[in-house]
């Protein structure tokens, strides 16, 4: 799949199964990404579903100039920031710590397909937010620097700098293990 663009073309042509393909490819990574902003899994799910709904409802907003994954992540980030802005007005249902941890683990295992990524993810929590996002987009979602810069509203050089500093910090955190992981 070419980052979902061909599936989206088929969806626009009326092929309903293309929607399933896009969801399978992008939904959990999107939830995982949005969760980095909102730090609340049910909210991240809702925001991600909202972003996907937007993608399938406004059929001609995506212009194929960037990869579908980049576009969806941009939608997700925009909705996540909106959610954070309006969060104080929303009523939240309480979950127990055990439930939360279990769900986050499950999401991690669905979104991150390798042991290596999971190991880095655990260390990421100690980094500043922007570094976390840069590492997430480039190492986990395998976006290019330019695509990650588009999602983060930064220049590629800034993303490069963030990643350089993130790697240095991760090496300090992970020690010898980092040499194999990064």
């Amino acid at each position, binding site marked *: 799949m070419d980052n979902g663009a061909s599936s989206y073309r088929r969806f626009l042509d009326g092929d309903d199964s293309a929607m399933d393909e896009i969801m399978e490819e992008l*939904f959990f990574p999107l939830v995982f990404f949005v969760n980095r902003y909102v730090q609340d899994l049910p909210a991240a799910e809702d925001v991600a579903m909202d972003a996907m709904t937007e993608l399938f409802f406004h059929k001609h907003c995506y212009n194929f100039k960037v990869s579908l994954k980049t576009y969806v992540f941009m939608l997700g980030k925009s909705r996540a920031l909106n959610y954070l802005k309006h969060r104080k007005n929303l009523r939240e249902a309480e979950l127990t710590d055990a439930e939360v941890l279990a769900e986050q683990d499950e999401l991690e295992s669905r979104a991150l397909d390798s042991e290596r990524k999971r190991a880095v993810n655990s260390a990421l929590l100690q980094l500043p937010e922007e570094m976390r996002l840069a590492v997430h987009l480039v190492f986990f979602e395998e976006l290019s620097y330019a695509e990650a810069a588009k999602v983060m509203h930064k220049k590629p050089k800034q993303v490069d700098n963030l990643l350089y500093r993130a790697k240095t910090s991760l090496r300090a955190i992970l020690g010898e293990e980092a040499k194999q992981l990064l």
Partner: protein
Amino acid sequence: MKELNEYTAEVRERVEIRCKARRQQRARMLAVGVPLVLCLVVGALTLPRALRRIRSSQPTEARSEQVDGEALATGIIAGGLDGALPDPVEEKTAEGERTEGITIGVNSPKTSETASFRIVWGCYGISSYDSATGELVKTTDATHPEDYVTTLNLTDQQETELWNLLSKLDPDSYPEDYDPYNDPDSDVRMSSEPSRDLILTVRTEAGEKTIACRGICMGGAGLRGYDDRAQTFLEVCEGVTRLLEQTPEWQSLPDYEFYYE
């Protein structure tokens, strides 16, 4: 955490809900917008016609009042003569006649009772007539000027003709010192030797207005006023003097003793 197909189903449901809401919104807009636009179009088409019909169906008296109102607004009936002259609306409806400017009823008894005029004309202003006293002077330039004075009591027909002529003027629109041959804004002046005087005074209940043209050209064939208003003034004054000079009273006065040399 739910399975992917559950999330997919929920996304599908959300998309359908949004599509349905959009369809409803479109239907609502059509339901309100189309009749509204139709109403506006129909109103815009029919309202001017309806207004025209209402205007044309108004009674004659009301329309006469409107016409009179327009005349007042344009200043045709102004100041001097309006209080003295018969009511234009009554005369219009009675006689069905309307002249430009002041409207005067035919054979109106009010004319001589409520308004009068005096006109002075001729070379150096030697002839005059005053309708209030009936004094008609052929000339003041004589050894015995009293021989050239008589009394002229106008007949109804003469009176009507005179006032019909005078009704063409709006006295208030003329200055008190006036030269109908020379445009005050023009550098070119026209004069003659000898000159003549032409002084018209109109008296009404509302007041008196004198238009004095002193030392103006003698006039004659082809010599016109400098504009339409001036030409009207000259035509009215010449019409009045011609009418006076055709009366038997004028004709019975002796010939001029002196002529200009």
